[in-house]
């Protein structure tokens, strides 16, 4: 069933009953509002407040002005973490987007395989990042892993022990984990493109490639933006996978922002600076999702390549 599919009318309608009834209805939102405020909104402001304090995670919290910010902003670790975060974000976007679009288009058109493929395809979506990281860690072992198994010498690399290879591997594993999810999104979107558009294109003599670039891609524009936003924001908060797979190593080659925050706070007991890093994390996330939204909002003329 695609029962959720009909695009809901936005809440702009003001005809809805108001007045006395609103009061009773507000009560219904209170349980959700209460717990959401306590464990999401308060922490959001809390992290900002904590970034102006000194705290080791156990003792008392002392206000210390801009000390934490000074520490964080003058350390080269922050720039490095930001760089690695953006590198992994960019590379995994570059791998995931074309692959998910093509797979989504294919799956949307081929009903025959879909039932069978769908079962197997989406298994990576179900696994915890911890399980995925542990599996790949053993599978990538230079002596007993994939290299010796396939007999292909070039696969016997120290995948997680070399800085460049480790970043590449991480991008691969992230893609392995999330391509199914994005494929699913694109598949749904492709299926909602009106068939008549393709029929018209066929009459005009447009081939398959031409159809893909002049109908499918432009029609997927908003989906590409949604999916990209999820990828970008998701890769900002990539923590479980990296923590278990490389713990930021080798050296600090895969120490992304979220990991830098965790290590600073819970590893070195510097909760003030860790909170400052967390604030930066929130700001970068907001900035990027606003940027992507802008990109989507600029006219509905179809750009040839989507984003």
């Amino acid at each position, binding site marked *: 069933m695609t029962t*959720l599919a009909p695009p809901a009318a936005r809440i702009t309608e003001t005809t809805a009953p108001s007045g006395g009834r609103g009061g009773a209805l507000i009560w219904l939102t209170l349980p959700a509002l209460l717990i959401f405020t306590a464990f999401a909104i308060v922490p959001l402001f809390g992290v900002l407040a904590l970034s102006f304090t000194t705290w080791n995670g156990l003792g008392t919290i002392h206000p210390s002005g801009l000390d934490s910010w000074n520490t964080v902003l003058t350390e080269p670790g922050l720039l490095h973490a930001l760089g690695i975060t953006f590198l992994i974000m960019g590379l995994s976007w570059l791998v995931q987007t074309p692959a998910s679009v093509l797979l989504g288009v294919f799956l949307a058109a081929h009903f025959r395989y879909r039932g069978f493929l769908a079962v197997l395809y989406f298994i*990576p979506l179900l696994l915890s990042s*911890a399980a995925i990281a542990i599996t790949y860690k053993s599978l990538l072992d230079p002596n007993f892993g994939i290299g010796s198994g396939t007999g292909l010498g070039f696969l016997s690399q120290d995948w997680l022990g070399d800085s460049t290879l480790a970043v590449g591997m991480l991008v691969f594993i992230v893609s392995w984990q999330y391509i199914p999810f994005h494929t699913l999104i694109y598949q749904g979107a492709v299926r909602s493109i009106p068939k008549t558009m393709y029929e018209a294109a066929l009459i005009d003599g447009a081939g398959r490639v031409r159809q893909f670039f002049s109908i499918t891609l432009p029609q997927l524009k908003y989906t590409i933006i949604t999916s990209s936003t*999820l990828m970008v924001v998701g890769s900002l908060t990539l923590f479980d996978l990296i923590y278990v797979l490389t713990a930021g190593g080798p050296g600090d080659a895969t120490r992304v922002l979220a990991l830098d925050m965790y290590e600073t706070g819970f590893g070195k007991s510097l909760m003030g600076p860790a909170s400052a890093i967390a604030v930066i994390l929130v700001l970068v996330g907001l900035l990027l999702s606003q940027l992507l939204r802008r990109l989507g909002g600029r006219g509905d003329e179809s750009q040839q390549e989507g984003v």
Partner: protein
Amino acid sequence: MRRNWIGGSLAWLWLIVAMVPIYWVVITSFKTQASYFITNTFAPPTEPILDNYQDVLEAGFVRYFLNSVTVSVGAVVPAVAVSFMAAYAIVRGAGNRWLRSINSVFMLGLAIPLQAVVIPVYLIIIRLQMYDTLAAIILPSIAFAIPLSVLVLANFIRDVPKELFESMRVDGAGEWGTMWRLAFPLTRPALVTVAIYNTLSIWNGFILPLILTQSEDQRTMPLALWTFQSEYGVNTPAIAASVTLTTVPIVLAYAIGRRQLLSGLTAGFGK
């Protein structure tokens, strides 16, 4: 229609890429440690054994499994219930200024990454004297499940024809009765989708258990996998068995609820 070669070969290639690690982890879990090091890593075991699973079970995985069930059920049921009530109120009171602001607070939540606020969450949990309990994992999990749940459920309730609400009102039903007797049954597909989606993310959650618990009794499965892996180091077959065993329940749940989950996710994000 000509065949789509690019898409087709990519689809099958991806299938192989997606399946290799899964195939490998399953077959390895049935090998002895000795044979793992001398046989081809992709060859199925010549004499499959179950000893690795016994090791894993003896390492306390029954306990960790029950902990994960407690956390998932304890978080998902209340999260879906309170989100449904909130979504109902937001849709029914669309003209109300207060409800509109409440809705925007929830939508703001979509942009708050859990990872970024774990430090204050840790502080709050300590102050509530809940550190190292399952409740410590449950409460923030509920909070972070709410925004997306409210969004999806509200979109769904909005599609219930206005006349149905009107006829309930004419029959003298209050908001409470209308919510449970009319909106709840009509929203069931969306409720199931939201419940499955939240179960998946809470069941697989890692950072909250990592930060908010420390003792073995309170360990959930993803965290247990990680500690098991660091304790068993080179015993790859045992590690593979732990991964396989912890994955079986979700794959089973997926097999049962697949249709719901896939259609729900497609509709939720595909606009």
